[in-house]
């Protein structure tokens, strides 16, 4: 449900505004509203000096956020920051940011150098052995060439060109590299080195130069590179240690500074949401219903009778402006995860969470509908529950999966399914209600009936939500729901499921209701009615997915007898069941969600609510852990 809010107004002498904001922040209950504009009141704009202070605060916070993760909690209560505190924190944050930046850059350089050395080490080890084999003579230059796998064909032509240019004076040694490339060492007279370099460029052959800083020749460079590659990991570790020491010595202090500065920034921003005269301040806001007395007494205790809190009459404010807080019973609270995937509902409309809490697991259970698979889902939910922290998303997933598993087990027993027909084969499990493998039409009728109930419930909720704001539209919704019920009655009477006598009254009712609906909402109502009927048909997916699931499970069980070896057959069956279980988790979730978001919510849900964000103390962002 959406918690009812009350709009309140806080008033007092202008010089007590900072104190009043501090008390409101300590209470952490008031969601501030835009300032009222009436009579001599005008919005309280920040002075140039205050704006400068605000920009400075933002700069300091930017420095702190860059070095301390915003999930780091601040130890203990935060005393108000003085000017000298701010200056000290600003210097510390800037110095730390620069220091950490320098260490990060150094670490990145070392990582890059190590990666380069490791990459070239493969090439140069080969060239080193080629050089040793080629016994380089004085006055000769060495060229290190790497040919890609697709360039191997160019080696004979390169050799011919070198022979034509240098005759027997050129020595060529080659070796294949592990990656399919070919390392070629060319030893040529130093006097012809420039010509060879030009030839290599013309033939687009890649020459690997000796990396700078390790020595003029490869024979000198390779041992140095090898030694350097061994030194670097220790150096990286030293830099990382220095970084973590630097950070750990200041993390607590900076986290405390951030909490204090964020609080101060929030109070400065709150100033802009007040209205003032030369002597008085006024600020408006929303409180969860029933908490106004608590805030009032806290203001009175801290500031005496100088600051007043009064409740604004409900008739004087628009419901759409109020912030939204969802509060559901413990059983339904995990399902806020599913409704939370959509924008918040507007204030004054309906929170669909309790309905999702009932119908989502039911649809999931109907689609999976197998006691064996249901037990596996329950096991997964249990494991997830044990491994997740209270309040985390994973915990909510586990708590949603629990009821889904329960419904799957219940429907599995009703349908007589335990890993398909394995329950029947092993312990004679029989369907108590519907055999999904055989009675497809009754199952289809059941799902369409469920769809009719679900869509009509949505239309009724639309009537309830709209009754307060748009009575005409609400009546239209109600009439649509009534017409859908009449259509269902007429169809059942025509199929002789209901007594034939009710057919005529149902059709007459439809003929009367249809023009009234058009009169109330125009031609678009007819389209919406057709769309609602289409939505009911969409619930046939429950039957389709359920039938597919049971058929796949039966096929999996038959695998064990279809293959010659019993062990291979059992493995095939197990694999098939595993695939079916994976599909059975994924498809029912997606389609149950879709049935809610499109078919059900479409009839009544009004998104666009403002989240409730009271002026309070800064809290660290939850860490991304289970």
């Amino acid at each position, binding site marked *: 449900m959406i918690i009812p809010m009350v709009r309140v107004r806080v008033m007092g002498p202008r010089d007590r505004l900072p104190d009043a904001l501090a008390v409101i922040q300590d209470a952490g209950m008031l969601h501030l509203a835009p300032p009222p504009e009436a009579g001599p009141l005008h919005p309280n704009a920040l002075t140039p000096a205050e704006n400068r202070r605000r920009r400075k605060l933002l700069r300091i916070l930017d420095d702190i956020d860059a070095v301390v993760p915003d999930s780091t909690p601040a130890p203990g209560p935060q005393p108000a920051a003085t000017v000298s505190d701010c200056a000290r924190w600003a210097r510390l944050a800037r110095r730390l940011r620069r220091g950490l930046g320098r260490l990060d850059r150094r670490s990145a350089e070392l990582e890059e150098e190590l990666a380069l050395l490791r990459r070239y080490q493969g090439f140069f080890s080969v060239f080193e052995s080629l050089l040793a084999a080629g016994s380089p003579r004085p006055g000769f230059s060495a060229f290190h060439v790497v040919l890609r796998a697709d360039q191997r064909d160019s080696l004979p032509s390169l050799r011919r060109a070198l022979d034509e240019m240098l005759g027997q004076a050129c020595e060529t040694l080659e070796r294949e590299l592990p990656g399919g490339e070919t390392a070629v060492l060319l030893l040529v007279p130093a006097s012809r080195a420039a010509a060879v370099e030009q030839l290599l460029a013309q033939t687009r052959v890649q020459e690997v130069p000796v990396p700078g800083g390790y020595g003029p020749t490869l024979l000198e460079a390779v041992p140095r590179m090898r030694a350097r590659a061994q030194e670097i990991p220790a150096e990286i570790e030293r830099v990382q240690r220095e970084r973590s020491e630097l950070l750990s010595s200041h993390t607590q202090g900076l986290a405390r500074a951030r909490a204090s500065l964020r609080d101060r920034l929030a109070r400065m921003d709150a100033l802009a949401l007040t209205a003032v005269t030369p002597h008085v301040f006024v600020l408006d806001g929303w409180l969860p219903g029933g908490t106004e007395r608590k805030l009032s007494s806290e203001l009175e205790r801290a500031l005496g009778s100088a600051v007043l809190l009064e409740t604004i009459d409900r008739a004087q404010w628009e419901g759409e402006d109020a912030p939204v807080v969802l509060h559901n019973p413990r059983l339904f609270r995990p399902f806020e995860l599913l409704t939370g995937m959509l924008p918040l509902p507007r204030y004054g409309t309906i929170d669909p969470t309790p309905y999702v809490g009932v119908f989502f697991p039911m649809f999931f259970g109907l689609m999976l509908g197998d006691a064996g698979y249901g037990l596996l889902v329950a096991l997964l939910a249990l494991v997830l529950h044990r491994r997740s922290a209270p309040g985390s998303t994973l915990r909510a997933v586990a708590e949603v999966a629990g009821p889904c598993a329960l419904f799957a087990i219940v429907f599995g027993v009703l349908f007589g399914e335990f890993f398909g027909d394995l329950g029947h084969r092993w312990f004679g499990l029989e369907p108590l209600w519907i055999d999904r493998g055989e009675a497809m039409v009754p199952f289809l009728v059941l799902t369409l009936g469920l769809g009719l109930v679900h869509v009509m419930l949505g239309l009724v909720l639309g009537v309830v939500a709209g009754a307060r704001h748009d009575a005409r539209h609400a009546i239209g919704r109600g009439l649509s729901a009534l017409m859908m019920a009449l259509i269902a009655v007429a169809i059942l009477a025509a199929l002789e499921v209901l007594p034939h006598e009710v057919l005529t009254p149902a059709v007459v009712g439809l003929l009367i209701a249809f023009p009234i609906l058009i009169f109330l909402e125009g031609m678009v109502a007819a389209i919406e009615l057709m769309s609602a009927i289409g939505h009911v048909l969409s619930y046939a997916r429950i039957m389709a997915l359920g039938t597919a699931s049971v058929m796949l499970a039966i096929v999996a069980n038959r695998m064990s007898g279809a293959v010659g070896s019993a062990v291979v057959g059992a493995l095939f069956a197990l694999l098939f069941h595993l695939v079916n279980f994976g599909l059975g988790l994924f498809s029912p979730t997606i389609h149950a969600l879709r049935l809610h*978001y499109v078919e059900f919510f479409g009839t009544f849900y009004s998104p666009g609510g403002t989240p409730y964000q009271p002026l309070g103390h800064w809290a660290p962002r939850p860490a991304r852990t289970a």
Partner: protein
Amino acid sequence: MSILWVTLSAALAIGIPALATAWAQSRIGPAAAASLAEKPQLSTTVIILVAIPETMVILGFVVSILILLRGQAG
């Protein structure tokens, strides 16, 4: 009605919507992936958009089963 026509009708009833669904999802999928790369908060919308064309093949499946059942009864 001969078994051939019943089987062929059932096959067409599911086959054509399956192709249509596949075509629709092949168009939606890349667009959805591109949207998610820029705005990960659109994941719910994307799930719904990708699941919407599946209605065709699901209804085709239902119709196909009904054809087969009627064919058996006939």
